[in-house]
């Protein structure tokens, strides 16, 4: 969303109030570019002296980074003293803008709010136009830390007596988020520890399995889990204190005794007709049995089309699309697994509960699904008392309770005592989970690596594990499996670079691209198949064929210039640069396999050398 004030007016106001230089944070690259365009039509021109200063600084930076000279906005920037700085630009251009700001030559810079773009230069004023930020397809409110990071750029030490953070609204802005962020405390940070395959291999290379638990215990993750444990332990202590008056009575475990007695008594009473009595397992699953969800049943798999309750028993039911296309009405309990996979389902109110198109699509999806799907972990909350085996009730025969002297006390205290006892058990379980969760996750990884043959049964590295541990990037399992499947047999550098690019690139911005070679298409098909089969163990990369083709072109055609390449695609130069830089990083990991995979390492080396030219050579 662009700000509601016109960018030219915004900069004019800032100039007039002596609030320049300013960094103006906008929601998107497009908003920044459009803001720049709106200046092209404006009459504003800078005084000669300032124009000359900009030219001087630019000339200086261009000496080091020649690609700046080709930037289309140079003239506008010089004329109006305003520039844009975002991830769509080449790093060299961003360096130029930073240098211009550092020397005080510009009045304003439009930048995107993503600090990942590396806005690391200060100004007198920072302008904020939004209160939320796009993160993974959804808008989330800015946190106090983020707001303070933005505002932190205002006020240059040694150059300003005061700094200013100015809010100017755009649609959907929430002023409270910003005022709270400005006046509040930055959020506490939380560990984001994840256990990756390379981590497991590298740890097991240097330490025996028995030592791993103590290494994991050194993580910040465990430190924070311990803090939570401490809180739970305090609660547990107070619960235990609460439990004291409910110690042994006539029978030592009177709570269980009374519970059994109560149940036996209730058993004689007729059940209320509409009591929902599904097991906790089924109840927990019900929330996930939504139209479009893929589930496992005893024989095969299916997709849920609707969920309802049966008329008479009021039992939970589902309509299930089975492999082969048949529709079944079955009790929800038939579902044995809920998979982490849903498809779009356009629902209707009559049989077959979705549109014919959806039905057709889903039938296709169902046959095309990979053999293994990630299972959705579902927490079952056993809040209800565990049902008691009827055999116990029978063997107990006559209860002592009705005539017991403690009966009244038991009857009175039972609800509270049993609640506290449940709480205690729940806390003990949670504490155990907090103490062992990292180790469990590590063990899960060990199991997978053992199944694939990177570790032996004693969790020691196999020959394959020895080299696989050197691949320390995202999607490492896919890459090492591709190497083992000899997908890269005697591969040409352009093809290798292209595949690595499709694995490395994690941006879904659409665009137009050149076509890939037939060899690339075939190879990517194989890679995709392997990636799908690994889905239960590693999330597959995007594997975009278009960015792969672009990389292939750059590596195979050494006469192609950067500008020439940029003409072949709508991808922004900054994105192209990042794609290639990341690809080089991935390739250089393959280079480390020289000892075990000499021809692959050599191919990677050639690919890197071929990629490093023009703009890619400018930066260290």
């Amino acid at each position, binding site marked *: 969303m662009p700000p509601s*004030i016109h960018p030219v007016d915004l900069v004019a106001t800032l100039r007039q109030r002596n609030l320049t230089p300013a960094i103006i944070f906008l929601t998107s690259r497009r908003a920044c570019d459009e803001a720049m365009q709106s200046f092209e039509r404006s009459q504003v021109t800078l005084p000669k002296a300032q124009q000359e200063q900009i030219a001087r600084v630019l000339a200086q930076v261009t000496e080091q980074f020649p690609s700046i000279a080709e930037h289309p906005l140079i003239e506008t920037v010089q004329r109006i003293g305003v520039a844009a700085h975002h991830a769509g630009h080449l790093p060299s251009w961003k360096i130029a803008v930073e240098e211009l700001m550092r020397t005080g030559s510009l009045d304003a810079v439009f930048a995107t709010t993503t600090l990942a773009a*590396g806005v690391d230069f200060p100004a007198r004023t920072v302008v904020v136009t939004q209160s939320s930020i796009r993160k993974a397809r959804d808008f989330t409110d800015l946190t106090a830390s983020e707001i303070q990071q933005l505002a932190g750029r205002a006020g240059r030490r040694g150059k300003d007596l005061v700094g200013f953070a100015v809010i100017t609204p755009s649609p959907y802005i929430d002023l409270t988020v910003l005022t709270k962020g400005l006046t509040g405390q930055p959020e506490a*940070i939380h560990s984001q520890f994840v256990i990756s395959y390379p981590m497991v291999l590298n740890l097991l290379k240097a330490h025996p399995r028995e030592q791993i638990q103590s290494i994991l215990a050194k993580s910040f993750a465990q430190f924070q889990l311990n803090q939570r444990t401490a809180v739970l332990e305090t609660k547990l202590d107070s619960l235990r204190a609460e439990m004291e008056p409910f110690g042994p009575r006539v029978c030592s475990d009177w709570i269980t005794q009374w519970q059994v007695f109560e149940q036996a008594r209730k058993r004689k009473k007729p059940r209320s007709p509409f009591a929902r009595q599904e097991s906790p397992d089924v109840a927990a699953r019900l929330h996930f049995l939504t139209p479009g969800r893929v589930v496992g049943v005893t024989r095969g798999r299916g997709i849920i089309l609707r969920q309802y309750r049966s008329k008479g028993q009021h039992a939970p039911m589902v309509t299930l699309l089975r492999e082969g296309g048949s529709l079944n009405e079955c009790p929800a309990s038939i579902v044995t697994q809920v998979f982490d996979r849903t498809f779009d389902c356009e629902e209707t109110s009559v049989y077959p509960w979705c549109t014919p198109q959806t039905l057709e699509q889903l039938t296709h999806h169902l046959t095309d699904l990979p053999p293994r799907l990630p299972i959705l972990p579902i927490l079952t909350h056993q809040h209800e008392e565990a049902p008691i085996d009827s055999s116990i009730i029978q063997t107990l025969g006559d209860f002592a309770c009705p005539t017991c002297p403690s009966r009244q006390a038991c009857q009175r205290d039972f609800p509270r005592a049993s609640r506290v006892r449940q709480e205690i058990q729940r806390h003990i379980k949670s504490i155990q989970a907090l103490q062992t969760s990292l180790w469990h996750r590590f063990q899960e990884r060990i199991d997978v690596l053992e199944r694939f043959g990177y570790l032996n049964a004693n969790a020691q590295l196999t020959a394959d594990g020895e080299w696989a541990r050197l691949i320390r990037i995202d999607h490492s399992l896919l890459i090492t499996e591709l190497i083992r499947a000899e997908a890269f047999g005697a591969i040409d550098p352009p093809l290798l670079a292209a595949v690595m690019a499709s694995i490395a690139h994690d941006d879904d911005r659409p665009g137009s691209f050149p076509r890939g070679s037939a060899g690339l298409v075939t190879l990517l098909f194989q890679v995709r198949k392997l990636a799908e089969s690994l889905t239960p163990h590693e999330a597959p990369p995007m594997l975009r064929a278009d960015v792969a083709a672009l990389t292939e072109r750059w590596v195979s055609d050494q006469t192609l210039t950067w500008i020439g390449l940029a003409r072949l695609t709508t991808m922004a130069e900054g994105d192209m640069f990042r794609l290639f830089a990341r690809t080089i990083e991935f390739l250089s990991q393959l280079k480390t396999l020289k000892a075990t995979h000499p021809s692959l390492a050599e191919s990677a080396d050639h690919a890197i050398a071929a990629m490093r030219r023009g703009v890619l050579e400018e930066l260290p």
Partner: protein
Amino acid sequence: MNTHELEQLLMQQPVSLLHRLARGRISRHFRSGKRKLVDLLLQASAENRPGLESDLQTLIEERAHRPQPAHIEKTRSAQARPRPAPTAASRPHKTDDHSHHEPPVSLHEWLSGIGVPPPQPFIPDAWQVDALAKLAETDVVVSVPTGSGKTYVAIEATKRAIQENRTVIYTSPLKALSNTKFTEFSRVFGPGQVGILTGDRREHSQAPLLIMTTEILRNLLYDAAGGEIDVRLDTLGLVIMDESQYLADPERGVVWEETLIFCPSQARLLLLSASIGNPQDIADWLTAIRPTPCSLIRHTKRSVPLRAGYLHPNEKLTPLFRTAGIPYGQPHLLHPEAKRLFMEYEEETGPSRSR
């Protein structure tokens, strides 16, 4: 927890907690009232029920253990003073009453004092001196606002280490920042004294000060543990990690943890971070896992004071708060003019908002 119980639990929570829970789950949740928010959350829970429940528990627990706002205000005002002397006068509710009675700051006053300070001889701040002194004895975590002067601490600490014939590794989260620092440090220490390692490029990899991304350092440490030493780690005297708040980055934070866990014990650690909420936790954690204790250097006062303003689309500028500076802990102290203009804006753009 069944749906009914979840609903009840949600209804018992304050709206602010519900909004935090809704972050990333519901778009534009701040437009919803409590009832609607609970409904939306229940709907969204179909996606990942266990996740929602566990986040909810965490938030409830966090709330129960968070210091009260009054307490925050007290520490803030105490830190702003050279000598913390909590007297009755610094009590938050008094300040509160006080500011309400003061007339709101005028635009003129708010804009006054803009300008360039006269050049002054460089005198290190107390916190900078303190950080360097502590670093002689312990590892150090620095958590100060952006623009305070963390680079000075990094440079001085590096000078000392080099004087003692020790090597220094400086890590930054982004390649672009590594490049900037490489240029900056080469200017300070002389070109041959600074090396850079990124991806597969290495320049002056035997220089006493090496700049690299955190991933590269992590890989070096793994190689060293596996027995293949690449860069000499035995003479390593100091590891400086810039932008340490990246520890909380969802994708890359784990690399900071791995690096800190495996950082050689003979090397001092200097963690430089923007202001974060729990820097003491980081220092306590490092103290727990490393042979030397870790000190925390923290302050919240910005070196250049900040003022906040509101600019209406019709180019009218007004202070955002009643006070010229930021009223920490009191977000509701809006300037009446900013309040009025923003309400006007909301009314004018209102209809377009309902998607």
